[in-house]
């Protein structure tokens, strides 16, 4: 084992991670709550209504962060997957596995809030707008990853298979995005108002950024919690395995 690998392993050691998570989590949770409250206050009581979109601009304060986290969640999975394939470290597997459902939830919320915004703006819940369509395809990639995790029983094998799929997906995301954009410009004259205007006033931008920061923190709070649970789950499985083995030995001795 090389020096660098040793350091990496020590940092990513499950026991060490559990300690680190317990230290960070309370602080991060407080920070999340603080940011979220500030963001909500600014969004509802301070931010002016947009001259084009009226009060519905308030949906943007959650929709845009959700869309951002949908992308970020997949990036987290990709990075963890690369780590898992190269270093074969179980913590990278844990990180990739637990990020998937959280990212999928944010993706789903981005879709739902997008369509709730679409109804008053465009008069319909769903438009095949380039952005919504590519987020929808991203959602399918998440579903595929989660399904693959679920289908393969052995954690290390499931982790590697999901890592391969995640990396293939991340190579594909830009291509999918590009092709959906192309498809959209072909089929739709750009008459629909874009979700984000080019000029965002600072009174809208500030709450947006704060909300984005709040939800990003929330993502990591949930991710750390889920990772901790996953580590516990693996411990339980390992213990059950040793239990089975111990039982096998005593039975063998009796026989």
């Amino acid at each position: 084992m090389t020096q660098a690998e040793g350091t990496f392993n020590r940092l990513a050691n499950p026991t060490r991670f559990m300690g680190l998570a317990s230290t960070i989590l309370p602080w991060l949770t407080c920070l999340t709550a603080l940011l979220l409250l500030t963001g909500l206050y600014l969004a509802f009581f301070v931010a002016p209504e947009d001259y084009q979109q009226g009060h519905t601009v308030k949906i943007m304060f959650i929709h845009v962060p959700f869309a951002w986290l949908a992308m970020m969640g997949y990036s987290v999975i990709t990075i963890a997957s690369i780590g898992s394939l190269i270093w074969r470290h179980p913590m990278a597997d844990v990180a990739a596995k637990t990020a998937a459902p959280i990212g999928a939830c944010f993706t789903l919320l981005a879709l739902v809030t997008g369509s709730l915004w679409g109804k008053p703006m465009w008069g319909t819940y769903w438009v095949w707008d380039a952005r919504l369509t590519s987020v929808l395809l991203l959602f399918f990639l998440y579903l595929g990853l989660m399904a693959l995790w679920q289908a393969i029983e052995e954690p290390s094998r499931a982790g590697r298979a999901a890592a391969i799929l995640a990396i293939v997906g991340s190579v594909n995301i830009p291509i999918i995005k590009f092709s959906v954009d192309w498809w959209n410009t072909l089929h739709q004259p750009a008459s629909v108002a874009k979700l984000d205007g080019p000029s965002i006033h600072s009174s809208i931008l500030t709450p947006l950024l704060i909300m984005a920061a709040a939800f990003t923190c929330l993502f990591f709070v949930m991710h750390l919690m889920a990772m901790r649970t996953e580590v516990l789950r693996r411990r339980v499985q390992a213990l059950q395995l040793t239990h089975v083995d111990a039982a096998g030995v005593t039975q063998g001795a009796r026989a």
Partner: protein
Amino acid sequence: MKLALKDLKCVRGGRTVFEGLSLNVRDGTGVELTGPNGSGKSSLLRMLAGFIPAAAGHIHLEGGDNDVSLGEQCHYVGHLNGVKRALSVQENLAFWTEYLGGGEIESALSAFDLENLSHIPAGLLSAGQARRLGLARLALVHRPVWLLDEPSVSLDKGSRKFLSTAIASHIKAGGIVIAATHAPLGVKFAQSLKLGTGGRS
């Protein structure tokens, strides 16, 4: 030529199957692997073939071809025959000749007593005949190392003779054979390795 295994460790599904396994096999000798189910006989053979990465330790074929992987210098015979039911016996062997490179189909057929069946679709063969067809690969393409996992399964007494003859002549010709068996194969092996229930102390 010498196959050297040093401090091998095998982990399957979170369990340590065996560790600290060292073994040297000289050319012209064979090793018999014994041990109860789950003791890692199959895992060791699959590890040698390169299917399972070793959790620790090294495997090296001294005096082998350094340009190709160890797996490419091995014949691996597992529980499955690798026989295509839709192809005839002859066609099955013809594909392996082409794909694995070289070999005389006729001599492989006679080595495992399949001459009369060569134009029969493999799907019609009995279990023992299909097994012999799977084993005929050994005689078809020359590879220095043979990894055999329960090779005599579903072979009747008469057929076993063909197998033991093939193994004996391979050893005599300076090959290496590592075979996991429950039943004796009728060949004298230079070494015998008994795998315990490692990791289950």
